[in-house]
């Protein structure tokens, strides 16, 4: 891991309160990232924001040499990040955490299930899976129409189902409703989203192997402060989301 100042190439709102941030990075560094890893971003100079913000990698464009992250404006820190302009420098720790170990898995068909701001890391994952000739289907869940992003992008990589809580876009309901209704053929599933969704998905798909990516409030982001812990399945110890995760095997931790 290293601390680096990177140049902002572009910054845009792509959905309700949802910001896409493109960062310029060299090939050598870009090629080291795994899908599911995150970068730990310093909000600004000065002492107003003492904690960095952990944000998952949404895409890596090797040709353009761009790393993309997508985040939602929740509080003052993410609002400040959304005000950044192209050309400005951003202080980041990269790369952070463990990603989806797809090179170690024998997969022919993968099911990706994302909820809200858990969707972005699945995009780079889908891209890497398709590169490996894995057939990808995706289920994306959002609250409402205004929150939806990347439907077309995921559609280009395989069958993509979108569902909204209020039915204003795609089908009405939760990702679990789609899993129940549709005939889905896969040998591994990968999921990222709110804890309640991950729990429901894990219960529903308990006969399938898979990986989940967790979100937690973090301090250092490098494993030193013990802020972002999650209990191991046997309750004997805590794992650190920032360095042992954020990606965990299904049933490796208690949600």
């Amino acid at each position: 891991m290293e601390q680096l100042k990177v140049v902002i190439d572009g910054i845009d709102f792509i959905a309700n309160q949802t910001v896409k941030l493109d960062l310029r990075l060299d090939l050598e560094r870009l090629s080291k990232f795994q899908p599911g890893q995150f970068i730990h971003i310093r909000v600004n100079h000065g002492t107003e924001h003492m904690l960095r913000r952990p944000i998952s990698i949404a895409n890596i464009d090797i040709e353009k040499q761009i790393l993309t992250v997508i985040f939602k404006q929740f509080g003052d820190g993410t609002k400040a990040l959304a005000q950044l302009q192209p050309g400005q420098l951003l202080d980041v720790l990269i790369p952070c955490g463990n990603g989806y170990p797809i090179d170690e898995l024998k997969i022919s068909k993968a099911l990706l299930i994302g909820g809200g701001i858990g969707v972005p890391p699945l995009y780079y994952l889908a891209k890497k899976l398709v590169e490996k000739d894995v057939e990808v289907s995706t289920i994306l869940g959002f609250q409402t129409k205004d929150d939806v992003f990347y439907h077309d992008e995921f559609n280009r990589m395989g069958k993509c189902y979108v569902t909204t809580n209020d039915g204003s876009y795609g089908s009405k309901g939760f990702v679990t409703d789609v899993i129940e209704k549709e005939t889905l053929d896969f040998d591994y599933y990968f999921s990222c989203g709110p804890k309640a969704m991950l729990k429901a998905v894990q219960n529903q798909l308990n006969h399938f192997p898979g990986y989940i990516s967790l979100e937690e409030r973090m301090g250092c982001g490098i494993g030193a402060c013990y802020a972002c812990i999650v209990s191991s399945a046997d309750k004997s110890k805590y794992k650190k989301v920032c360095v042992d995760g954020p990606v965990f095997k299904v049933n490796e931790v208690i949600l």
Partner: protein
Amino acid sequence: MDLSIEIPGLNLKNPIMPASGCFGFGKEYCQFYDLSKLGAVMIKAATLKPRLGNPTPRVAETYSGMLNAIGLQNPGVEKIIKEELPFLKQYDLPVVANVAGSTIDEYESVTESLRQTTDIAAIELNISCPNVKEGGVQFGTVPEVAAEVTRRVKNASHVPVYVKLSPNVTDIVSIAKAVEQAGADGITMINSLTGMQIDLNRRQPLLANQVGGLTGPAIKPIAIRMIYQVYQAVKIPIIGMGGVSKVEDVLEFLLAGASAVAIGTANFQNPMICSDIIDQLPACLAKYGFSSAKEAIGGGHH
């Protein structure tokens, strides 16, 4: 510029050290710089048995600071001695072990366990953790109790004992005097201030523990004031901490009366902060007319 400082058990090449709980046992930060550069390192608190700590959320950002309620998660003193301390041995770096407990007996037992290692230079006696139900801060708020823990740990210890004071008291000077009389070799101050943040959506305290310890630049003026007062009342040295985020803060702590300065929360914002400040310290001291770090200690008292 001479940055060296000598206080009981600690021959410091410079007065800068990471504060306990913010630096783990050093492993994570060695990927950013050579830890031998530090004056010393204060490692994460040790209890007798492993502790899992509190549920999450454990941290929340606040204006120029943060709240934490980790709850003394640690693998227990034996594992720390066997699995964590050997790593730090490769560095030219005095290690300060932080001793915590739920009872005076536990503090004593942890200290006795530490006798088996030669890898520590001093003990920081943590009678001020606000985030555990039993022990911690309750030993740091009553002068007589603070003195009793200090006496017992001092007797059990083979290295100098620095007592970490809580700012969550009416009169910190009386606690400082009590631990000095009980035999403390030094004082470290301040631990975090208790605070709370309420989540508007959930309409309840944000941290799972409800209350957390407030740290970061927001608490610096309180730390400076308390160190200034304690410096006037005791003869033992003070290691100061509380919101240090830039080199000028270090000089301010020295002037208030600290002999050395620990950096905590700022490590999260900038993992290079201790290293950066060590680089900047000679120029800062020179700018304000000092020819050594030692010369600045207590310089704010006339």
